[in-house]
């Protein structure tokens, strides 16, 4: 999943949470009589004559405003939902081709090679990989299954010493940030491939 999604989730939850808390505080303050009775009486009904009068005076505009606000709320909610499935998996990576044009490298060929190369280490049982990010800033996510009593340095060295340098070479890029999820003693589940 996207890092941006995680940050967006927390920001969204924070804003909605603060809004609910503010609403709750206002209602409770009014109910407790914290405001001057002339402005906002605690004894008055939730919907008083003033409110009715306002809706009557600005009819139907006030209702259109309410409808617009509701639509905006729904759109925000919908966008927030859709963003959850967002993945930054790349299928192809464009390389600078110079005057000859643009070369596109199939991400699968790169990730398959990377996974195979990772798996060639005796301590690594199996690996899967997926390219993420953008063509300009590619990144890689891997799942690596390691022999249970292997030291983590085996994974580290195989990835930073062999797999990632080769990917950098293939994609002609300076850096490829990598996130690897390591299971100890289990082969990686093929269907739980990285997203």
């Amino acid at each position, binding site marked *: 999943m996207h890092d941006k999604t995680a940050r967006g989730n927390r920001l969204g939850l924070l804003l909605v949470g603060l809004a609910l808390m503010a609403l709750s505080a206002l209602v409770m303050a009014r109910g407790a009589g914290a405001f001057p009775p002339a402005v906002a009486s605690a004894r*008055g009904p939730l919907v008083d004559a003033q409110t009715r009068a306002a809706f009557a005076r600005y009819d139907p505009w006030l209702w259109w405003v309410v409808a617009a606000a509701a639509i*905006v709320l729904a759109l925000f909610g919908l966008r*927030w939902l859709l963003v959850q499935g967002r993945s930054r998996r790349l299928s192809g990576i464009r390389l600078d081709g110079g005057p000859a044009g643009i070369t596109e490298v199939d991400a699968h060929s790169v990730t398959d090679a990377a996974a195979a190369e990772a798996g060639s280490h005796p301590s690594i049982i199996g690996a899967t990989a997926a390219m993420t990010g953008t063509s300009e800033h590619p990144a890689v996510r891997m799942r690596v299954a390691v022999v*249970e009593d292997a030291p983590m340095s085996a994974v580290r060295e195989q990835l930073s010493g062999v797999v990632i340098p080769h990917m950098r070479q293939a994609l002609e890029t300076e850096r490829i940030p990598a996130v690897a999820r390591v299971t*100890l003693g289990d082969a990686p589940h093929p269907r739980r491939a990285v997203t």
Partner: protein
Amino acid sequence: MTSHEPFSEHVSGHVSDTGPTEEIPAAPGTASVAPSAPRAPDEVVRNASADRAAVRAFRPRRVIPAVITAVVMTAIGVLVALEVISALAGHPLRLLPYDRMLTWASSTPWSDRQVMAGAGLVGLLGLLLVLFALIPGRPTLIPVRTGDKDLVIGMQRRGFARSLAHAAERVRGVDQAKVRLVGKTVRVDAHSAVRDTTGLADAVREAVTARIAALSPVWHHPVHVHLRGK
């Protein structure tokens, strides 16, 4: 946020390595050993920003509360928009009993107990969402020290615990060991059929600590050994 990233713990970890040396019970029973095993020298260069990147990469993403909130927001928005627009168009849908709602709202004062309780509930819900947003949460994987910001490695908790249990079981005299992770503390429950368990708890602790060092997690994981005799 930074208080959850225990980089400072490592500093003290090296100093306090003069823990109890003999903690063997006279009678066969249980022995609890204080967690003060020496940390093996790190193979990896310690890099605070790389460690932080690793911890951050596996923080919970709060998908479930976000999805619930988003669904509720969408539902409320759609419902209100439908009601208002259909009424404006002259064909009210009346999905909500809003005549009754208006009557109730026109006769209920702000100080009504139901209103206050409802507002309190909404406030608590808001607080819950704020907490979800602000609490970093337990990382889904145990971050591994790599010394490189561009290489983030995390290992599954289950595999980590199992690997430590097997390390404990390899100690001579231990026939069975279970490992639980309580927070960052590694609790080893080892069973031994040997009559003389002198030094066994220490040996288990050493083996487990060595295995932790080989797995090089970002955090310091103190080891507690609980030895059960015959």
